[in-house]
């Protein structure tokens, strides 16, 4: 098994219950593992939540962590994947003074070239949104930083896997028992 440290995306299908986030994060905390990002949302299955957690670790550790997560009663399935095995993206927002949009024509070029989107404009500020890889977001942040950013926020990674998940089949099999 590969012993080099790399990024893994841990995908977890769970019941939608209070306290489960605490239970899952405790598994990382107890082993002194830093969570790079964590996103939770509804999954493709009604009533089933999906966690996407990014961590840097060896594959051996990732495998053990996933087993501990899967052991939790309200975890339906948990997986780990390398970057190559997933399609992933992040999203970010910038709040910038509106004056700049008119006084610094370069900003309009940056918006265009970065494929970012203006969400709203008013007389005080405008909000720019962009989805993409981390390096694209970072590059945009650097470019805009020259002019001054009022607020910046970036989401955790969201990812879908190339591999099929088969969670619906599992749940169906349980219902048919």
């Amino acid at each position, binding site marked *: 098994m590969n012993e080099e440290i790399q990024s893994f995306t841990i995908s977890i299908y*769970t*019941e939608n*219950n*209070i*306290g489960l986030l*605490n*239970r899952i994060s*405790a598994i990382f905390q*107890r082993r002194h593992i830093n969570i790079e990002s964590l996103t939770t949302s509804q999954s493709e299955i009604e009533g089933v939540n999906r966690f996407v957690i990014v961590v840097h670790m060896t594959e051996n550790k990732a*495998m*053990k962590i996933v*087993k*501990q997560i*899967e*052991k939790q*009663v*309200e*975890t*339906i399935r948990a997986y780990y994947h390398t970057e190559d095995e997933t399609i992933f993206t992040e999203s970010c927002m910038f709040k910038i003074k509106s004056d700049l949009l008119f006084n610094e024509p370069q900003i309009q070029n940056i918006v265009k070239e970065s494929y970012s989107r203006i969400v709203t404009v008013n007389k005080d500020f405008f909000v720019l949104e962009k989805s993409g890889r981390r390096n694209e977001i970072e590059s945009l942040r650097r470019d805009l930083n020259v002019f001054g950013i009022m607020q910046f926020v970036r989401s955790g990674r969201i990812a879908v896997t190339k591999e099929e998940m088969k969670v619906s089949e599992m*749940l169906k099999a*349980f*219902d048919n*028992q």
Partner: protein
Amino acid sequence: MKETQTINKAQGVVNAPVRITGSEAIVRCLIAEGVDILYGYPGGAIMPVYDELHKFRDKIHHVLARHEQGAAHAAQGFARISGRVGVAIATSGPGATNLVTGIADAQIDSTPLVCITGQVPSHLLGSDAFQETDIVGISTPVTKWNCQVTKAEDIPAAIAKAFYIARSGRPGPVLVDITKDAQFSELDFKYEKCKGVRSYNPVPKTNMEAINAAAKLINNAKKPMIVWGQGVILGKAEAELKAVVEKAGIPAAWTILGASALPTAHPLNIGMVGMHGNYAPNKLTNECDVLIAIGMRFDDRVTGSLDTYAKQAKIIHFDIDPAEIDKNVKTDVAVLGNSKESLALLFNALNKNKHESWLQKFKDLYAIEFDKVIKDDIHPTKEGLTMGEVIAQINIESKGDAAIVTDVGQHQMIACRYSEFNITKSNITSGGLGTMGFALPAAIGAKMAAPNREVVAVIGDGGFQMNIQELGTIFQQKAAVKIVVLNNQFLGMVRQWQQLFFDKRYASTEMTNPNFVAIAEGYYIKAKKVTKREELADAVKEMMASKESYFLEVCVEKEGNVFPMIPTGASVSEVRLS
């Protein structure tokens, strides 16, 4: 009490809903789950349930502990000797937090426990109300599952799920926190036992290919060795283990929690592995060619240094919990599933075999251990009583039929090494967590679950004082527990380490002890103190013959050490005899 509907106990269901309060529902749920004894301590947020327990007192016996920690350990002792789910109940805040040590102990030792805690009314949650604590948050890392109930109508399903999860698969503790308003309000009560949880697969399927691969390795092995753990007891697989061991002629060793699954006297039982285990199985772990681990988890106290643990051997690991596979030791063949089922399948695939010369190696090393350690432990000639000779004396009187409940430390290692066990589920001790204060309350629970069995609590002078208040419970419940305190006036195991690894700097390990006999007598428990070897046999005899609880203090040598010993971080083959 609304007796218009009676609970059909056999089916665990009520035929038609009946309008009752949440607190009555809790008690009816417990009765429907077959609970007839529970351990607890009342308080504000759980009072409605206690009111119902009073009404149902002819159906369910509540044991008033003297501290919630005592209640939790008593429920553990109940579960460990009976294989049933232990139940503990406490109020919110400090009542709930006092349960936590017992819950953590049950989690690491896979003990089925249902804990019910009262909680402040739901409208006060998060307001720092009197006796409010986030027990669901606190207990999350040490429970198999937990939940908070804020509505009366959610109570039956939560309790049904709690019992199902606690007892199924790899057992463990669960906690259900119930707000006071949910206890007071009414619901249409109908109880249905939980039959499954869709996100939870308690027993993974046993793979026939894995069984065959394991059998092939075992059939070709010249020096196979079994190490079994509590998974054999939890899986009720004692007979299957014995059959496998005998058919294939494999020397079999046990972890501390596996003790008693196979009788001590069995010719293929080669003793305990681990830090203070027997010389032969530790040493030969690094000589066997196939190591068959059954329902054990390669704890660090068992393996010593992992880098040098059984590297020469093929490893076969039987376990119900997939997370244990490859966790500490890389497995060559993993057999998932219930130990009873998988050992029965393995039995069919095994060839009849004998390993006489290999078994002889264990006997030879035992002879060395006997000469260097055991002889002086159980037949000492020098002055000063040893812990070992006390255990040997208990063996003589119990003939191996007693359940031995131990605390944590030197006395625990000695008791586990030298107790003779004929009957399974007879070694009740805090293994994984190493909880001092476990034994006295656990012995109460064990005795109440198995009133016809002799239950002997063997405790050190340190651990005895950690839950000494439970003498009150013994007295009030008339629990005929036999208590042996091996008093060396030290926290002996820590002192031993200070002697060996800290140049005898005995930092805070010496104890100035009270008059234990007077304390026991203060609780009206018959008590005796032994200081001389010639008094020991008669005192143990008198204790074991007593129909009531009995307290025996034995003053043992102050600076006795437990050997063999694998120093921390050393290899199992570096086990020391002195």
